[in-house]
C-alpha cells in the first residue's frame, strides 16, 4: 500500500508533453502548468539554438554534410525545417554558387564549428528538458531530498 502511494507521487508519464517539448523548447512544461519554467527554457534553449544560426548561418544545420552532429541538432524540431529549407534550396538552384546567392552564405572555420556546436548543444539541452517533462509530477516539482535542493 505504502509502495503504491509512493509510486503515485514519483511522477507520471507525459508523452504528449514530451513531444510538445521536442517541437518547441519549453512547450512541454507550459502544458504541465509550469509557465515560468517553460519561459526560461524557451528563452535559454532558443537563444543557444538561434545563436548558433546567427554565428554560423543556416549552413551549420545540414544532415548530409555532418550527419553525426545532425543527430544532436534534430533534438530541437525546428532544425528539421532549417535542414529541409537548405536541401530544398540546393535542389531548386543547383547551379547557383554561394558567391552568386547572397541569401545562403556558407560559413567556414571557427564560425562554422561554433555554429554547429551551439545548435547541437541546444538539441542536447532540449533532450534534458524533454526527459524532465516526460516523467514528472504534474503541476509541481518533486520535493528534493534535504541538502540537495538546487544542486
Amino acid at each position, binding site marked *: 500500500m505504502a509502495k503504491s502511494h509512493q509510486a503515485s507521487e514519483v511522477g507520471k508519464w507525459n508523452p504528449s508533453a514530451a513531444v510538445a517539448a521536442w517541437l518547441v523548447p519549453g512547450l512541454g512544461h507550459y502544458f504541465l502548468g509550469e509557465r515560468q519554467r517553460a519561459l526560461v527554457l524557451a528563452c535559454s534553449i532558443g537563444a543557444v539554438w538561434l545563436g548558433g544560426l546567427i554565428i554560423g548561418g543556416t549552413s551549420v544545420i545540414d544532415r548530409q554534410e555532418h550527419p553525426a552532429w545532425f543527430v544532436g541538432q534534430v533534438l530541437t524540431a525546428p532544425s528539421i525545417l532549417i535542414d529541409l529549407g537548405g536541401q530544398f534550396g540546393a535542389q531548386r538552384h543547383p547551379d547557383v554558387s554561394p558567391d552568386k546567392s547572397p541569401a*545562403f552564405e556558407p560559413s567556414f572555420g571557427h564560425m562554422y564549428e561554433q555554429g554547429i556546436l551551439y545548435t547541437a548543444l541546444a538539441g542536447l539541452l532540449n533532450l534534458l528538458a524533454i526527459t524532465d517533462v516526460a516523467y514528472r509530477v504534474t503541476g509541481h516539482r518533486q520535493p528534493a531530498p534535504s541538502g540537495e535542493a538546487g544542486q
Partner: protein
Amino acid sequence: MILAGWMTVAVTLAPVWGIAFPVMRPLRFDAYWLLLMVPLVIGISVTYKAINLEDLSMLPRESMLMASQIVVFMVVAAAIIFAMTQVM
C-alpha cells in the same frame, strides 16, 4: 504539397529574408571565436538550473555561479594542458 509550396515561397523570398535576418550569413568573428564560449556556458547553466531548481527565484544566482565555475575550470584545464605541452 503544402510544405513544398511554403518552401518555394521561402526560397524565392530568401534574398530579402537574408538582408532582414542575419541567420543567412555567418558572423565575421573569427579572431575572437573563443569569447563565444561565454554565452554558450551561460545558456547551458541557465537551462540546467531551470530544470533542476525547485524555486526559480534562485535561478540567476545559481546559474551565474555554475557558469563561472565552468569557465574557471576550463581556464585551469587549458593552463594545465598548455603547461604540459609547452613547458614540460
